[in-house]
């Protein structure tokens, strides 16, 4: 009896979560699908975003994402490798690094926005720019990315490390050819989490990459990302709901595409490594 109640309750929980997701998706698809067309993707917004398309917004979003990942991936992998392979276990500087990362991971994104505005935009003189926005996002996704990669590397069995030493591999070679490929699922998970958080971010970007909806000409230009565009259209621009739904649908499709792309890239890259 208790078992049956228990299984019903957990099933209901699962069904509730799926229902919520389906509801959101149905709402966005049914309201947004009518707005989507090739012209919507390749023209500039007009009349404060109510009419026209989202081409510059889409380009800005990709710019910010590429800058954020280009800054966060090498740095994050480096820190994760150091923490799991080279640092003295849970002592001294490594322990402090770990605590710092956990604190940073819990900070609300608006705080990163204020920091990014003060540090990248004002102190470093980048102004409102895609570069400032991308670097702010990099700071924001680093803690989670590092922690995910680190735990993935730690989970690799010590047999692999000993095997690599027995073959006379250097530590660097062992990391590149054995440990990183073995930690592939974790790195991918970190990447997907990072992409999701970065593409959906509004608060951290409003005051760093900014509000300008012109086609960016360089990374030093200000550019409005999709999330900021959706927020402005739904909360600030009267009559912007239709375009907001259209943009939201584009954002969802974009995140799905990017996650698929990340998966295939990571898979390909590491498969070659392992087979070499």
């Amino acid at each position, binding site marked *: 009896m208790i078992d049956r109640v228990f299984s019903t309750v957990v099933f209901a929980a699962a069904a509730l979560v799926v229902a919520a997701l389906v509801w959101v998706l149905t709402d966005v698809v049914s309201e947004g699908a009518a707005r989507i067309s090739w012209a919507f993707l390749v023209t500039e917004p007009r009349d404060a975003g109510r009419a026209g398309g989202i081409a510059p917004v889409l380009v800005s979003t990709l710019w910010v994402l590429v800058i954020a990942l280009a800054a966060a991936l090498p740095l994050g992998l480096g820190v994760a490798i150091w923490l799991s392979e080279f640092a003295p276990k849970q002592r001294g500087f490594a322990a402090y690094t770990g605590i710092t990362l956990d604190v940073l991971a819990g900070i609300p994104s608006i705080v990163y926005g204020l920091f990014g505005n003060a540090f990248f935009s004002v102190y470093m003189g980048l102004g409102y720019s895609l570069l400032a926005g991308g670097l702010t996002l990099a700071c924001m996704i680093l803690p989670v990315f590092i922690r995910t990669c680190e735990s993935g590397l730690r989970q690799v069995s010590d047999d692999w490390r000993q095997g690599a030493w027995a073959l006379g591999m250097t530590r660097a070679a062992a990391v590149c050819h054995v440990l990183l490929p073995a930690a592939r699922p974790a790195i991918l998970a970190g990447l997907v989490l990072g992409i999701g958080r970065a593409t959906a971010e509004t608060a951290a970007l409003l005051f760093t990459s900014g509000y300008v909806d012109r086609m960016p000409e360089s990374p030093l230009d200000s550019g409005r990302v999709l999330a900021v565009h959706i927020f402005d259209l739904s909360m600030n*621009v009267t009559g912007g709901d239709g375009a907001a739904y259209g943009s939201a649908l584009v954002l969802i499709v974009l995140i799905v595409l990017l996650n698929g792309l990340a998966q295939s890239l990571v898979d390909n890259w590491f498969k070659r490594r392992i087979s070499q």
Partner: protein
Amino acid sequence: MFQRLTGLLLAVALCLSAYGVQAADNRLILTGSSTVAPLVLEMAKRYEQQHPQVRIDVQTGGSTRGVNDTRTGLAHIGMASRNLKPTETGLRVHTIAIDGVGIIVHRSNPISSLSNTQIIDIYTGKIRNWKDVGGRDLSITVVNKAEGHSTLELFLNYFALKNSQVRPSIIIGDNEQGIKTVAGNPGAIGYVSIGAAEFSQARGVTIKRLPLEGVAASVAEVQAHRFPLARPLNLLTGKSPSPLARRFIAFAQSEAVADLIADQFFVVPR
């Protein structure tokens, strides 16, 4: 290897600095009110079309940010959807549009007007049910704006209230949120931009505008300067703005942008 890397970095740095210098005299940065930003963004686009070498970046952040950024020089021009406070000195004000603020209730509400005293009593919590002002037996949901919004300051000023006296049921942010909140709540009362309310009503959103002191809450009455509750939408500069800033402000105050002001549901100042 290192030499090549250094060379590359130097080249990048040179490009960036050249870009910075080139950008200095034909680039304007505006920050401030989120109400004014969409309007000025459209004006900036039209100006850029006519002057292809100019770049005008419009950023948001609220009226107070507009004031502060202009005073510290972070922005060439600030945007504010209110008059300056006595402490905000050293700035020149250039009005580009007028925005009326009207009281709205749900469309199903049979009330057709409220006196100023009744509105004050509702917002201070002395009247809590619509039947006390001649309506149905339905409790009143008071929708107030969050601290820092200039519509809130305008509303409080006009009715001589302090925000601590107001007993709100719901606190909201931007205009559009106010319209959506009242439309979804039959007992609600709120105050929003008249142009936006008129437009939403025409599209079938379930709200109703109430007259104030006997004057209908319509764009036409705001235009005629008869509606009592209105605010200026301003551009702010320091005492001596740059030539480009001066030219853009003249453009923003000219006939050439009258259609843009109407498109954003504001009124051209006369």
